[in-house]
């Protein structure tokens, strides 16, 4: 193992005197087993031994994780632990980074998404993504939502497209606020509205999975609450992976939680169990605020 920097520290004897908070958490051994059950009964996405390298940097090590239908799974962990990288593997957005290399197996509904025959356009239509910073296109509200259906040819005519735009905005809880200004630029909306516009844009193509990369980190608490309510409603129809730095948010919206630490998936479990009874020392340290 090339990427092991420290001796294989036993997980249970990880240094406990971290109260000063000045020293960075010790690097864990690569390839250590994840605590908790990574599998689910009805998986939509199955990941096995996923490794990601950015050039020489080993960003994710042997992560295996299932994502179930109609569940919200939260990815938590300190900055740089690889949770966003993992998220970006699921719609192959890492492909756009020239130095990124992904190995392992990720399948969507039993189909290997890194297969040569898998088309990324098709994949990204099935796995939508909402980003950290609201990034509506500098076009009108209508065009923002209509863009996906348009490039994928989902609407036969203008009436159908209008309908898709309206239902998507309604499901994103934005319709009432923007129905009179669909022609205004999407960038003129407030931050929270922009993020809901991005969600509307994503669900307009009816994906199977929605990836959310810290969707509320740029929003105020009220806008955050609205997005969280929205996530709760959306899980009726989609599997949602949400990366978050807010443990309260993870506790509020998710059913399962995965804790990442320096590229390793340390622990997975039901959100209740992770937050009330973490089994791994690192998880416990993190959720109790010892570091992170």
């Amino acid at each position: 193992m090339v990427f092991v920097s420290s001796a294989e520290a036993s997980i249970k004897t990880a240094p406990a005197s971290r109260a000063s908070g000045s020293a960075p958490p010790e690097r864990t051994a690569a390839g250590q087993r994840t605590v908790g059950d990574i599998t689910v009964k009805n998986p939509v996405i199955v990941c096995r031994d996923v490794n990601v390298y950015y050039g020489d940097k080993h960003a994710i090590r042997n992560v295996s994780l299932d994502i179930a239908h109609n569940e919200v799974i939260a990815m938590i962990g300190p900055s740089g632990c690889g949770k966003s990288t993992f998220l970006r593997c699921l719609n192959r957005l890492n492909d756009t980074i020239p130095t990124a290399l992904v190995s392992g197996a990720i399948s969507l509904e039993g189909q290997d998404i890194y297969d040569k025959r898998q088309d990324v356009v098709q994949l990204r239509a099935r796995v939508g993504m909402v980003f950290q910073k609201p990034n509506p296109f500098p076009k009108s509200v209508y065009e923002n939502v209509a863009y996906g259906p348009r490039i994928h040819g989902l609407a036969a005519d203008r009436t159908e497209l209008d309908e898709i735009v309206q239902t998507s905005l309604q499901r994103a809880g934005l319709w009432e606020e923007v129905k009179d200004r669909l022609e205004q630029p999407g960038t003129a909306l407030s931050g929270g509205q922009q993020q809901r516009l991005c969600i509307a844009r994503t669900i307009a193509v009816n994906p199977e999975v929605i990836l959310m990369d810290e969707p509320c980190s740029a929003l105020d608490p009220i806008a955050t609450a609205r997005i969280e309510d929205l996530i709760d409603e959306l899980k009726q129809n989609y599997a949602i992976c949400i990366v978050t730095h807010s443990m309260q948010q993870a506790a509020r919206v998710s059913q399962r939680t995965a804790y990442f630490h320096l590229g390793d998936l340390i622990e997975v479990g039901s959100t209740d169990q992770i937050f009330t009874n973490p089994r791994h020392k690192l998880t416990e340290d993190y959720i109790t605020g010892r570091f992170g």
Partner: protein
Amino acid sequence: MSDTDLGPAAVENAAKRTRRLVEKSLKRRYRAERRFRAYGMLAVALGLVFVGFLFSSIISTGWTIFQQSYVQLDIRYDAEVVDPAGERDEQAISTADYSALIKAALRERFPDVEGRSERRSLYGLASDAGQFELRERVMADPDLIGSTQTLWLLADDRVDLLMKGKIDRDLPEDQRGLSDQELGWIDSLLANGRLDLRFNRAFFTNGDSREPEQAGVWGAVVGSFFTLLVTLLLSFPIGVAAAVYLEEFAPRNRVTDFIEVNINNLAAVPSIVFGLLGLAVFIQLFGLPRSAPVVGGLVLTLMTLPTIIIASRAALKGVPPSIREAALGMGASQVQTVAHHVLPLAMPGMLTGAIIGMARALGESAPLLMIGMVAFIVDIPGGLTDPSTVLPVQVYLWADSPERAFLERTSGAILVLLGFLLIMNATAVILRQKFERRW
């Protein structure tokens, strides 16, 4: 307690020290700031002075170009001269000696002028251009033959210089360029209201000429227009396509690094080298016509391409990556991402680059000298392969001419060149505002 911990007195002392030191340094900092601003304002002022000097010098010598001296003569379309055979034969009419009509009109005005040399200097008051105008009139309407018309005809350039106060009447005769006798005739014409400054149509509609009063800038304007048209149509699409490919699609490796370095090098190559290249490749190898706007456009394309590519790449780099991710995340293909989102956002920057390149191309003369656009061309070019010249080369040609009246033409041509530039830049600003979007 470690040694970094301080007692309350020490903390207070340290804070006091900070306050004192900051106070002490404040004056110096503000002084530096004022000094820096003064330098900036000085630089701007100096720039303005130079620009003001340039413009005032050009405008003060060039503004008179809008007017030209015309002499009013009673022209009798003598059938004996125009159509001696009386057959109204077009060939005969077009080859008739129309200058004789002008000479006759001048003799009539000053009947007491005798002797060959005196008469010749009298005829010199009117420009040669008059005969062409008369021929055109008769060709258009042969019924004029036999009638008399009172016409304003172009006066000679020396008359014009005197009218515009550019010849000093008080100079001795041999230094003046106009003899006392000629001055007398001019004064007599002036007294009768038969010599006047009128709008200088010739300058804006004629091609080049050896005679200053007939020389116009239109040939060069049309030549410049055709040349820039070729340059724009080639360099903008090629430049943008190259920039988009290098920035959005090409892998980062040694080959692309090498290409990038060479594009930057090309941007610094002296323009005359591109002229030599054009001469060797386009004219010698491909056999394209010399002095033609198409070759000029090709040469200037080579010259402006690096500028446009570099500016376009910078514009593409300026598009926030979040927009690309948003589009890719929606399932847009790479080409769709670029075409729908990246390119529209980069367009203002690309247009700025293109305009900078085009402005440089408009003012370029050295490479065009190499491909023969420096030739003396009288005819207005009618197409991309007609021999022509361009505005900066025309300026160069006129600045090189010995006649004093060409000085005014030179400044006039520069004014037209600046006007051309102004129109181009205004178009760019309008286009840019149209494409500009906020995010």
